[in-house]
């Protein structure tokens, strides 16, 4: 007896694909603390290149999983870091951008 395939929802995805996407989202969220820790360690060590690279990766990944505001906050923090001069991690602009990123990440977890 033939069984009809599950109908996709309005996103065009079958239930199986929806479930797969949700699993990927969960994996991304599970890895978010480690991403933030990496940025925090770079800031504590004064490693601008490392912090910028970690922010850049987060900015690129977050939106693909539906967390657009998180990606925007990461991008903003990256731009602040790139625009800062000496001792960027001690500057108020970085402190504010970092706090905003951490706050945004708390809303998605």
């Amino acid at each position, binding site marked *: 007896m033939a069984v009809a395939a599950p109908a996709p929802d309005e996103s065009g995805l079958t239930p199986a694909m929806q479930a797969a996407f949700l699993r990927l989202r969960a994996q*991304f969220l599970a890895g978010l603390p480690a991403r933030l820790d990496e940025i925090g360690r770079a800031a504590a060590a004064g490693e601008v290149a490392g912090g910028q*690279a970690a922010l850049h*990766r987060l900015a690129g990944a977050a939106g*693909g999983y539906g967390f657009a505001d998180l990606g925007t906050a990461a991008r903003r923090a990256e731009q602040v870091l790139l625009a800062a001069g000496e001792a960027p991690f001690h500057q108020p602009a970085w402190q504010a951008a970092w706090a905003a990123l951490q706050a945004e990440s708390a809303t998605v977890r």
Partner: protein
Amino acid sequence: MSTLRRVMCVEDDPDIRAILDFSLAGVGGLELCVCAGGQEALAAAPGFAPELVLLDVMMPGLSGPETLVALRALPVMAGVPVVFLTAKAMPDELEQLLVHGATGLIVKPFDPMTLAQDILPYWEHGRGRASAG
């Protein structure tokens, strides 16, 4: 009329590799080769023979532009469109990337539900024309 089948993705972030796989292979039904960096891509390209390459820009080791130059030296890559995937968004940054000879670029974040469709114009218009930059 031929259709796009084989896409190579070069991306160092594991979460982005996962969503690329979901998007292009799962949603798009494409045959995918996902590489974690430029050296891996250079090793895989001759055997996989991609019809289009999605290439991250910022990667450790070989950068995206450096990988592009090295890929273009491979005979199998003649005429194959290479599209940069980048989180850069400022117009001057984007313009600088195209100078390296990419067929086009897609700004992250991309929509995983439509990426397989979004890359088609680059394949349709870029194949056969792509050459060393």
